[in-house]
């Protein structure tokens, strides 16, 4: 995998708490990487450099520490990071506040632009992590079958 994509995947894994493999099985990694780049516009390369430097650290605890040190305090980066976490968990990209666009020096998104509040695709809705974290499924997608609701929830132990 190309290093930028790999760094993005590792970063997403660190911020969502789902493994790289689990995220890859949603089929959404590349879609979301492209979306975040598009939202960031001219600020994308510095954000990506940041992510790559974090992802380069081999130890998960070190990466978490660096996230807390570099990204959490940043009024520029953290809204993008929390937006990305919400995107993974809820399948919706929520438009960043106007003051973020001001601070970033970027134009506000138009009604068709990637930065607007929107659901990127049916797959984004179906593969959202919120219900998956609760050993369940989003309403109207991936049902568990007639009668399955009457037994204790199945905790999937097979994913690494």
């Amino acid at each position, binding site marked *: 995998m190309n290093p930028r994509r790999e760094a993005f995947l590792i970063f997403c894994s660190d911020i969502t708490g789902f493994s790289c493999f689990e995220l890859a099985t949603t089929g959404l990694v590349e879609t979301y990487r492209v979306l975040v780049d598009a939202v960031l516009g001219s600020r994308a390369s510095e954000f990506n450099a940041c992510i790559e430097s974090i992802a380069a650290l081999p130890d998960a605890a070190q990466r978490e520490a660096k996230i807390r040190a570099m990204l959490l305090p940043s009024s520029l980066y953290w809204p993008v990071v929390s937006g990305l976490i919400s995107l993974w968990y809820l399948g919706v990209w929520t438009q960043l506040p106007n003051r973020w666009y001001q601070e970033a020096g970027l134009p506000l998104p138009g009604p068709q632009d990637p930065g607007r509040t929107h659901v990127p695709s049916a797959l984004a809705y179906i593969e959202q992590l919120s219900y998956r974290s*609760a050993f369940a499924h989003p309403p*109207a997608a991936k049902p568990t079958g007639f009668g399955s609701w009457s037994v204790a929830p199945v905790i999937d132990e097979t994913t690494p």
Partner: protein
Amino acid sequence: MLFPQGATKKTTFKAACETVHDVVIVGGGVAGAIIADELAKAHKSVLILEAGPAEDMTLAGYESYLRRFYGATSKDNQAPYPVNPNAPMPRGPEARKITPGQPATGGYIVQNGPFASDTTYTRVLGGTTMHWEAKVLRMLPEDFHMRSQFGQGVDWPLNYEDLEPYYELAEAEIGVSADVEDQQYLGLKFRKGYEFPMQGLPLSYLDRQVDRGIENTAVTVAGETHSLRVRPFPQGRNGIPNPRYAGGQGFKPVGAVNTAQVEIGERCQGNNNCVPLCPVQAKYHAGKTLAKALKRGGVRLLPQAVAAKVQLRDGRVSHIAVKHYADPASPAFEEGNIRAKVFVLCANAIENARLMLQSDLPSTSGLVGRNLMDHAYLLSWGLMPERCGTMRGTNCTGGIVDLRGGTFRRQQAAFSVDIHNDGWGWATGAPYSDLTLLVDDENEFGCDLRRKLAERVTRQLLLAAMVDVLPSESNRITVDPRYTDALGNLRPVMSYNVPEYTLRGVAYAREFSRLVFQRLGAADHTAYDPEDYGYVTYEGEGYIVRGGNHLAGTHMMGTSPRNSVVNTEQRSWDHDNLYLAGGGSLPTIATANVTLTIAALCYKTASAILRDLS
């Protein structure tokens, strides 16, 4: 279920205006569909006017509802259904607190208040049964005698025994999954040997956890003790066919509607999205009955046709003026008159009243639009001590119905409690709200976030108490020429307050939920924000009351033209050839979701119409 290809395009507006039909039905929802089907069986010519757009009911069309739902950035109970200014419908997110003296005009329904209702209904082919949850409760025998038995509300001009055979017909048409032995409580009785079409759906794991917690619990109200248990609700969705149904003939579930054969929807899969849309059509919707009716010959459907005025001549209805639009995106319309021998309004309690008032017909009772009722929902939510597999199954499989009846109804409203399988969603917007709280407010991320979210969501228990609302003449729908929609039809204006009788029931229901949480060892997380549009106070305590979309009362049935709008067959006392069918006819709603009773009454009405026509 095959939908006859081209049925929605076959009838032109011109042709519809040129014919004198046996019967014209306003509204292609469950009431209109059942009446049309019954009339068609007797070879009558029927025209159904549907305000919403109607493509042939195909999987592709249905799936466009599903895609719209997936793509909605925030999901409310009308999220799948497109906005149509020519046949607008109320939507939950429009609800706002009402400033006294200033009508809230942001939504389709203009609201005077004081109570801000978030009630909705769906103006598409199939009506609100596209979006309903599909609980199909019969009313209790005592619900028909509220005045004589409890000194509250009014008595129906019918009783349970009168309605029983019609309940059976409705249960057959909707396709109900239930077991008789679970439904015989509080006086509910069934014909000896009666079987439901399909076996009861299994209770959820969550239901059984709650049942374990409350077994051996009893409550005493007004000196009467009620012991509690969790009972499955009868549901209008496909389950395992009952081999003993119809004397051993069995039952064939009706699945998805399409113009070519498909095999989907013949059994519930637990999609947990009953409201606002079952993705596979395992849930009943009136399109299934419409498809049957349209195949019989004699039934025509004219979509994008909004009834504007009921016109009289010599005291009888001579025609209905209709506005027919070509394109939902444009307010351009053509007008015409639809003539028939008999006219049936099936547009729901609010729209029927709106149309009658817009038509400005004389009314002996003066009750058209009055006595508006909707169930008051009181939500309570907590966290169970252990994981209970929330977010699986139908929206609701079981509940506590032991307080649907009893002597306490002399003083306070009865209620039925739903155990929600979909967590705190309705109350808080879970899991979205939980995620947002953790990420935005608490800066959680990574494994901690995943774990904390899981711990919350998978233990969420929501109890929804559906509280009885009595008829009150000041709760009403009116019209006002200041408020119109894109076609120039008058919008409904609602004045509504939650009666004190109901608030007493609400307060008790809150106490009741506290007791249940305590028995379950669940942490009570219920909190009512005074800024919420549904916030009400009673005896110094605050509660949030939500609408139930169970609209009723606006053309109440009764014993005479002075005390009611329609008779027991839903015929207008004042107009021999006009019927007003639907929730508006119900004198009380008690603690039963209204659709089953509406459907039952429609069979009675259809017989009456056939008598009229012969």
